[in-house]
């Protein structure tokens, strides 16, 4: 019996909401997995902010071209119809509202849509990359994340306590337990694991989960 989704399963669930022909940016790391789970017959166009549209899978080891990398600096390949462009054009795509969806990781998401995903505080070397740009402009900014931190604290919170990446930018959160929309500065529950009670879910969530319409079962295949 599933008690929580794996990262692959969260990525799979997020991938189901990506229509054919959608322009998508996947954040570095965990969000990159979403590309693997596109439903048959759908083909999104993936954007990487370092300057490629319509890149494809990773090349076989030993066949990397180090001029052909994604924002995570991993080697990629190209699909037919790809294009290269410089960073200013690339972030024009991001900031100018041309991407349909950006899917990002998170340390915390607040019920007003605030996102914290770039810094865990003043210690160490700060690094932001394209995170603060990606939360602006995409028509839809979704987050994929475990529902709670490694030590069991809620990641869906009333107010972010970590340094913000963007203000009021997140519209949907896919977690290991649920799918939650952000609407009118509130969390609205859309789907939850069928084995999980609403009370148990609420107990692991840092702000109230509103019910506004049906709550579907979150059913994801074994992967």
């Amino acid at each position, binding site marked *: 019996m599933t008690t929580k989704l794996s990262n692959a399963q969260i990525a799979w669930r997020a991938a189901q909401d990506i229509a054919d022909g959608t322009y998508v940016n996947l954040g570095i790391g965990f969000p990159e997995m979403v590309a693997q789970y596109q439903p048959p017959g759908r083909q999104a*166009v993936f954007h990487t902010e370092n300057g490629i549209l319509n890149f494809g899978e990773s090349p076989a080891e030993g066949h990397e071209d180090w001029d052909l990398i994604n924002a995570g600096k991993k080697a990629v390949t190209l699909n037919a119809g790809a*294009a290269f462009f410089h960073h200013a*054009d690339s972030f024009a795509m*991001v*900031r100018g509202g041309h991407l349909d969806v950006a899917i990002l990781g998170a340390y915390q998401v607040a019920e007003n849509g605030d996102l914290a995903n770039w810094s865990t505080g003043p210690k160490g070397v700060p690094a932001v990359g394209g995170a603060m740009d990606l939360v602006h402009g995409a028509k839809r900014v979704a987050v994929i994340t475990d529902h709670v931190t490694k030590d069991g604290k809620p990641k869906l919170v009333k107010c972010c306590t970590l340094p913000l990446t963007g203000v009021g930018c997140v519209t949907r959160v896919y977690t290991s337990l649920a799918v939650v929309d952000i609407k009118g500065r509130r969390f609205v529950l859309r789907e939850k694991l069928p084995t999980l009670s609403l009370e148990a879910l609420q107990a692991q969530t840092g702000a109230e989960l509103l019910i506004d319409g049906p709550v579907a079962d979150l059913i994801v295949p074994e992967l």
Partner: protein
Amino acid sequence: MDKTIGHLAEAVAKIGDSATVMIGGFGGAGSPIELIHALIDRFHATGSPKNLTVVNNNAGNGHVGLAALIEHGMVRKLICSFPRSSDPRVFTEKYLAGEIELELVPQGTLAERIRAGGAGIPAFYTPTAYGTHLADGKVIAEFDGQPYVRERWLKADFALIKAHAGDRHGNLTYSKAARNFNPLMCMAAATTIVQVSRIVEPGEIDPEHVVTPGIFVQGVVEVPDPQQEEVLNRAGAHYP
């Protein structure tokens, strides 16, 4: 993904009354004459679209293309840098009669405002027009001891663009100096419709040579032997 459109009429079918429409080209080079004429045909048939705000470097020449659009009374306001041409009668008469509004913008500022619209930059500062009538009423600020004028982005509901080759993803190349405003306008419109001389398969345009990536394009229609404004005007053409 297939952004190709079969007919010119279909390509311009959604442009409504009072829309803001960027029209590509610098003079005749890069001007989407066939798309403009399809829009005029629709106006003849249905009375729409009218009261358009048009963004173009110029105000048309002779009695074809943009000049014909203005001549048919479809344009309420023009945002442009140089409303003169070898035969500017159509615009001049309407302007002097008070039948069309003109927002005059320096050419480089016009280009940058359109780029800003496409790039999500709501405003920027430029030295251009400081101390001139064209900066009247605008915010002025000093940076490093120099004065600059604040300019706003320019966006549109639609862009009508002429390109050379295009694939069904919307990737485009242009022909020589017909590039001009066209890649910028593709970025700045909610819906960008492009006439291309040749539709090619995705991948036929080398990814290094794509000038406008498909993300900026919503529709592509093939017009194999596009007319040139200059040639039409030398022949004294009127549209329709």
